[in-house]
């Protein structure tokens, strides 16, 4: 039976749904910490800003590529879903793109323009990061309700925007805890604490709004007997959040011990949240509108992409690891020479 499934290619859409989910998750984590640092750059004092931006400089470009891959795979594997999602989100997508444009180019412009103009690009960097974070969260919120109309679902989406923004700030702050030292590191610990509890507030608000807008998700989450199993996830998240809270209270430790841990914990919390979200609408690719199997492209084309992905992904993972190793350790100000 499994052989039959493989020969017929019916498994392909699910493989692609998995790859898209993986790309989006990697994007949210990797560009999440970049965007978080961008948001925190507003609160930098003096030379701290260069140090903060230096910590993400070698990585941000490749991080953003995961978004292109995720959206690209959606486009390729599920053209119907891609068209439906993006035409529904026409304006927020445009807003996000403008944010991405300003965030991306400010990186380069801020150090390549006359001194008196640098502040302009620093501001563009912050506002670009903010617009991207909020609009991405808002879009996930819209998506979760299947683009339902009405005030309640808009409020839900706005809560979600706040939640995602707080999550990005948390990861950005944890990244800085890992990559910086001294005063800046101590401030990053403080930022992480604020972001952690803002995220908890965002999660509570979104959860409270969920039953009013997405009854199907709600039913799914609270169905018996799955709930017993599902309860493990929020419990794990709460545990992780508490560990994080106490850990942040103790950092930085002598010898910089455990500086890596906040980032790892925040990534774990993000992964848990993401898996929970996906579970709530699987096997739909657009909640309540389109199932994965209904939306897939021709198996022949999917097969050829999957072959390519299977060959390229390990190489990609290899050189990404190499880049992180080259720039391991505490961040310094960036320079080309």
């Amino acid at each position: 039976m499994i052989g039959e499934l493989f020969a017929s290619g019916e498994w392909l859409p699910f493989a692609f749904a998995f790859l898209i989910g993986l790309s989006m998750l990697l994007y949210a984590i990797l560009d999440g910490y970049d965007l978080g640092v961008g948001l925190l750059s507003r609160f930098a004092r003096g030379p701290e800003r260069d140090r903060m931006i230096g910590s993400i400089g070698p990585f941000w470009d490749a991080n953003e590529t995961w978004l292109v891959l995720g959206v690209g795979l959606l486009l390729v594997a599920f053209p119907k879903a891609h068209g439906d999602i993006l035409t529904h989100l026409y304006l927020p997508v445009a807003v996000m793109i403008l944010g991405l444009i300003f965030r991306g180019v400010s990186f380069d412009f801020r150090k390549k323009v006359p001194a008196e103009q640098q502040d302009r690009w620093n501001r563009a960097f912050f506002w670009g990061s903010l617009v991207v974070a909020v609009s991405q969260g808002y879009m996930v919120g819209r998506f979760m309700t299947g683009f339902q109309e009405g005030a309640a679902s808009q409020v839900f989406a706005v809560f979600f925007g706040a939640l995602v923004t707080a999550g990005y700030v948390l990861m950005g702050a944890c990244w800085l805890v890992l990559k910086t030292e001294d005063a800046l590191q101590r401030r990053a610990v403080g930022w992480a604490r604020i972001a952690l509890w803002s995220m908890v507030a965002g999660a509570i608000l979104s959860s409270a709004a969920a039953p009013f807008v997405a009854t199907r998700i709600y039913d799914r989450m609270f169905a018996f007997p799955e709930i017993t199993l599902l309860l493990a996830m929020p419990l794990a998240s709460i545990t992780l959040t508490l560990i994080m809270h106490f850990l942040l209270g103790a950092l930085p430790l002598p010898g910089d011990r455990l500086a890596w841990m906040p980032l790892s914990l925040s990534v774990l919390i993000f992964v848990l949240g993401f898996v929970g979200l996906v579970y709530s609408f699987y096997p739909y690719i657009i909640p309540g509108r389109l199932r994965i199997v209904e939306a897939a492209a021709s198996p022949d084309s999917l097969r050829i992409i999957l072959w390519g992905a299977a060959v390229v992904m390990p190489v990609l993972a290899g050189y990404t690891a190499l880049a992180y190793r080259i720039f391991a350790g505490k961040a310094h100000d960036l320079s080309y020479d």
Partner: protein
Amino acid sequence: MDPFILSRIQFAANITFHILFPTITIALGWLLLFFKLRFQVTRDERWMDLYFFFTKIFALSFSLGVVSGVTMSFQFGTNWPGFMNTVGNIAGPLLAYEVLTAFFLEATFLGVMLFGFRRVKPWMHTGATVLVAAGTTLSAFWILALNSWMHTPAGFKMVDGVAHAVDWQAIIFNPSMPYRLVHTLLASGLTVAFLAAGLLAYRRLKGDRSPAVSSGLRCALTLGAVLIPLQIIAGDLHGVNTREYQPQKLAAMDALWETQRGAPLTLFALPDMEARTNHHAIEIPKLGSLIITRDPDGEVRGLNEFKGEHPPVAPVFWSFRVMVGTGMAMLAAAWTGAWWLWRRGTLPDWFLRGLVAMTFSGWVATVAGWYVTEIGRQPWLVQGVLKARDAVAAVPGEHVGLTLVAYLVVYAVLLTAFVASLFYLARKESARLAVREASS
């Protein structure tokens, strides 16, 4: 306004803005590698000076190329869902392969190339430069394979109105692909040659006498002088290929209404779509046929054979003349400049000013060339398979209009900032070298 027209303007605006930057980075990556290798062979500091100066320009161009490219990847879905619904089985894998094989490669190693100079071994830094240059070129390969397929589709069959791949080799190496790839890569080389020549001429005019400027100018002008004749040959062959596969585009480029033997070459005309004729035409008899068919009495097909199925004539006709005219100016400038430098070693000030004026001539020619080929494909999005009008999204016109205005404003701001930054960086580099000179 009609959302269809607005969507077309929006896509045209995005792709016009986007192409400016890959056109720089594709060839500039290889030029950087050349500077780096020259340094490793000669150990002469001037090559490293050139390397670091143009690295800054590369980084800036790269980030503008990335952000405008991301915009395009979203616009397929937001504005043109019919494109992927109809030909997604072909376009999808080509785009996916671009992201997988090229995007990640260049993005990851760009970090090493830009910021890793003191962190990795010299061979590894050179290796990163090679991979970045190879990545940008590979990216061009996939994109041009797809773009060419939209002009000369091959290797597929239609089932229930959806294209399915039959032969991937035929899809990738479709009839116009080799010509378009070579033509575009050469265009990138010329764009960089004139960009470099313009910026270095500017520095020389500002009093920078450093050896980096002299050697850089010599490289840039020699590069331009070598590439421009190759480009003329490549363009000519591309035109012959177009005659075979898209005769209506060729007829629009020449504003030729009636099929005829011994067709003239029209130097100037005001094509009139209503009356289906040209006004105030200045023509050279038989030259058109000679260029296209290699025979002064060869037959060239006219627009009237394709009524209702051919592109708007004036934009194609004029874009083509802008491209060729710019190419001719490049030929004159590159050959004169190279001859002077190799013979006398210096360039007169008026000529340097001319080079500064031509800093972005590569952009003009490249964009004009893209307009010829893309407008020349209309009303088709994929020649003979899908019309542009059938691919557009059902998004309200106000939304498209609103975002169009936002994009245009942002692009204008960024383009101004980009051009201003290049000349600012040039002044700053000259000042830095002057300080170093004085202190040694």
